């Protein structure tokens, strides 16, 4: 069953057609990769899923509900979490606090004035956050300030923040950009493991083909706002249109 259905989505920025009649469906429990050259509209498409942008035309359905016209926090509350292309974290706070916040949001909903309890005495939240940090390999650094982390650690932190909410759909915008080879491989392993243990659906944007082919069960190729191909990794590899899209930009 398709958990995410994108129908005829178009988005224009002034004279630029960033998305042009995009159709996608993401099957539950799969890893759906979106690849394409720089400026193809990949991030713009994700923005349309999380309420950052509203497409000019088309529909986006998640789990039978429309994602258009509802607020970002509402989209998250129904089970969609996103890792951004440039890490969006709480830079002044400790790693532990960074993960506790989404955990609170998951447990308490979009708004709750819980002002009498002590955050560090909410042991279920604390334990859960520590568990996630353990899983992602940041536990030792849990008391450090997020801004002081390396770019790769920031990404992993953001992933931990999303995972702490146990989402149904995880959107990852270039999760391994800025990571070392070793960290990239660790991330691949982590994302694979998550697929098995949580049955999580993932949409991943990635330039690193090693990551794409290690994870994806389906690949959509976006070029200049249009989906030019969508198929299993094996078939995408041999597709001449895909080669052309990439070679075309590399030649520039």
């Amino acid at each position, binding site marked *: 069953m398709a958990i995410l259905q994108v129908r005829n989505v178009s988005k224009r920025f002034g004279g630029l057609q960033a998305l042009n009649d995009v159709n996608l469906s993401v099957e539950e429990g799969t890893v759906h990769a979106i690849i394409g050259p720089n400026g193809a509209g990949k991030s713009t498409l994700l923005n349309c899923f999380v309420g950052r942008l509203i497409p000019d035309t088309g529909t986006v359905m998640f789990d039978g509900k429309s994602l258009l016209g509802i607020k970002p926090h509402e989209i998250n509350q129904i089970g969609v979490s996103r890792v951004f292309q440039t890490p969006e974290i*709480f830079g002044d706070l400790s790693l532990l606090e960074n993960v506790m916040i989404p955990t609170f949001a998951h447990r308490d909903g979009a708004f709750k004035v819980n002002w009498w309890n002590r955050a560090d005495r909410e042991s279920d939240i604390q334990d859960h956050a520590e568990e996630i940090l353990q899983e992602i390999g940041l536990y030792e650094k849990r008391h450090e300030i997020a801004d002081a982390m390396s770019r790769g650690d920031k990404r992993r932190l953001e992933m931990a923040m999303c995972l702490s*909410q146990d989402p149904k759909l995880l959107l990852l915008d270039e999760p391994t950009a800025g990571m070392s080879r070793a960290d990239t491989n660790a991330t691949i392993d982590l994302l694979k493991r998550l697929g098995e243990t949580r049955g999580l659906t993932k949409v991943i944007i990635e330039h690193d083909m090693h990551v794409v082919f290690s994870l994806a069960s389906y690949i959509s190729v976006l070029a200049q706002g249009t989906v030019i191909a969508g198929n299993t990794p094996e078939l995408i590899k041999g597709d001449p249109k895909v080669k052309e899209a990439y070679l075309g930009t590399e030649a520039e």
Partner: protein
Amino acid sequence: MFGLNRSDTLLLIFVALLTMLAPFFLNPFPEGSSLAQFNGGYPDLMQRFVIFGIFAIGFNILFGLTGYLSFGHAAFLGIGSYAAIWMMKLLTMNVIPAIILSVIVAGVFSLFVGYISLRRSGIYFSILTLAFAQMSYALAYSVLTPITGGETGLQPKLSDPRILDTMLGGGGDATRANLFGLEMGKSWQMDWNGWVFTFNTGYYVAAVVMLIAFYLSIRIFRSPFGLMLRAIKTNQNRLNYTGVNTKPYTLAAFVISGMYAGLAGGLLVAMDTQVGPERMFWTASGEVVLMTILGGVGTLIGPVLGAGLIKYMENILSKINEGLLETWFAFMPDTAGDVVVTVLALFTGKGWHLTLGLIFMLVVVFLPGGLVGGLVQGGRRMFRSRDGKATRETKSNQTPPTSTPAE
């Protein structure tokens, strides 16, 4: 203790001792000595210390935690004062109902102002709050004269109804604020070898209220709610994509800080039963910003210290006039003495704002964390130089400084 961790408990006890013993250490100089004018331990000033402390503590819940800088908080202070005085006029000179009403009225008004101002952030938010405060000031000054007494303001009169007091046939002076008969203005003095210490009922009432307000602010700072507010300050965007509706959080913080301001306004009236529109003037709104920044934005005790420092300078420094300076420097040769007096006169008396400005600049430039930030940093540096090696070695397994707001 009190559901606080060790360092917060110690801080609370420290502040409690500070306020309870203030009449002693604010009067370090014997009566009649030449330095006696630097004594800050007289009721009027001590009351101001704790009341403006409350104002700044509340302001810090908004500004320190969420980062939203309001330039209109004096409006809530003023509204609280007007509410309190009307309670006194109509119902009773007992301060409790007056203070309760001032908190409620300020809360409702801040809900309205916050709801509109929080549609914007950054400088636009600040300007909106400033606009509301100046409108309130203008209204109190002119159109609303029947309710506010216009330029002259309000104070209790013998002819006021005071329904409850009349019903109970209250004794004593009918127009003096009291707490169940205990007069706010009552003081008794202790003489000790030339030192005079004054203990004032009003001060102790205000100090106890301040301690409660301080305790509640610690609870807020350490709570999940406080954590969300700090998250708003660092990355509001992320918080929205994390499933948190940030609007009601900022509004809640705004209303809480408005209620603190109302409480301070009510207490001002409880101590000195009068109010005028100048209490809402924009300079009063700016003052609480200065207090908070001077003491340390986002720290627990900073705003209280900032409030104390500014109120001390306002009241003590401003009393030093040219005549006084001349007597101090009379020992100097004529021309040199004149020069010194002329220069110092710029910074004292009416020119005390100049000193404040200088101190403010120095703090902002050299101590970005305010006075408290500076103290914490200094303390940490001392600690490190003393046993630097040991701390470096155990760094990985001790609990390092987290982002938790400092003392």
